């Protein structure tokens, strides 16, 4: 069953980039679905207005798409994407530098406000429904993890948190690789069962 020479494993990011460059834009969509949360969190630290955060995130992914053929597999894709996000946000911020409504602005030309400057500038916050929706997802994931049988939980934690490979987890849990694969999958499915309806709700709300 074991091949004489083990087949090298492929990282999904690398494969997705290659597919996109080869002409399949849908492959890029999978990368977006994977990284948009982290990118938006990063941008959200530089910019408070949530609509603006989304605009900058959109722009980031467009720029990354355009430069994709330059991406060398040597560096991690997310490292490369992060850089583009920071640069894109910077450009937006520089353009907004003279806009007194942006909160990260200590520009001397602002009207002096005797009260706390933090309250002065209007920004767009995430509505209470959205915040609640996000919290619900987090709570549901936590609860689902707690409810998992111990061996499923351990397998998925070693994978998602510790970043161990199936082989390493197999050694750690003293079971075959096939069992590791199955446990991780069953853990994911059990948690996803609770999360899917919440994601569907978010889509439903649009209509």
């Amino acid at each position, binding site marked *: 069953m074991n091949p004489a020479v083990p*087949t*090298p494993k*492929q*990282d*999904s*990011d*690398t*494969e997705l980039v290659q597919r996109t*460059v080869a*002409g399949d*834009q849908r492959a*890029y*969509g*999978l990368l*977006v*679905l994977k990284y*948009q*949360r*982290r990118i938006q969190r990063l941008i959200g630290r530089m910019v408070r207005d949530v609509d603006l955060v989304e605009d900058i*995130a*959109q722009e980031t992914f*467009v720029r990354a*798409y355009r430069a994709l*053929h*330059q*991406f*060398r597999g040597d560096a*991690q894709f*997310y*490292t490369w994407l*992060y*850089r583009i996000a920071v*640069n894109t946000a910077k450009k937006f911020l520089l353009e907004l530098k003279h806009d007194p409504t942006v909160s990260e602005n200590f520009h001397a030309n602002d009207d002096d406000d005797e009260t706390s400057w933090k309250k002065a500038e209007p920004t767009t916050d*995430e509505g209470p429904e959205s*915040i609640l*929706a996000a*919290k619900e997802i*987090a709570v549901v*994931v*936590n609860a689902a*993890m707690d409810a998992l049988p111990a061996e499923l939980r*351990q397998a998925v*934690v070693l994978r998602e*948190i*510790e*970043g*161990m490979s199936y082989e390493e987890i197999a050694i*750690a*849990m003293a079971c075959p690789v*096939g069992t590791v*694969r199955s446990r*991780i*999958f069953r853990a*994911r499915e059990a948690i*996803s069962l609770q*999360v899917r309806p919440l*994601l569907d709700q*978010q*889509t439903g709300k*649009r209509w």
Partner: protein
Amino acid sequence: MDDLKSISNEERISVMMDGELSQEECGRVLGDIVADRRAIETWHVYQVVGDVMRSPELAPARDELKFLERLEKRLAQEPKLPQSVPTADLNAGVSDSAWAATVGSAKQSANAPVFRWKMLVGVACSAVVAVVGGGLWNQSEGARGDEFSKTKQIQTQAPLVVAAETPVGPMLRDPRLDELMAAHRQLGGHSALQVPAGFLRNATYEGAGR
């Protein structure tokens, strides 16, 4: 993998995203996913679950498929991509200061729900534990296609708390070393280069363990 055909679509997605398939198999599975709305949604929910496990902050507040739709409309107007061209390493350059990688932290604020199950790892797993120092960085071995890099020490260890998230993957952290690092940066700044570079460097690092 021998029995790729005998497992469900969902399980194939699960194995593939963990980087456990050969290039050929990975390509095939991805080809199946992009053509199937349900499979895309599975990929999406699995990614969300992984992110939220690492950091509840990452739970989506808005419709992410809508975000993608909006993006796809724009991309449809883009010219076809040129094929990959080897260029100078984008990250090289003595004076290229506009680098980017993130060192995020999954550590909870005092008011967030406690993710107790994250602590089970150190206790339950004594045989092989991936340890990456105790500090801010992930030790990158630079292996191509290796999504998570680490140095390994086989040892018994006191429970290691909450991982930090780095672009190359999560890592364990020794909170005690973090405290010492913070103390060193706070008081150990008797350096001619302290201001501004030293102080700013330390301020930028600091608090990652707090």
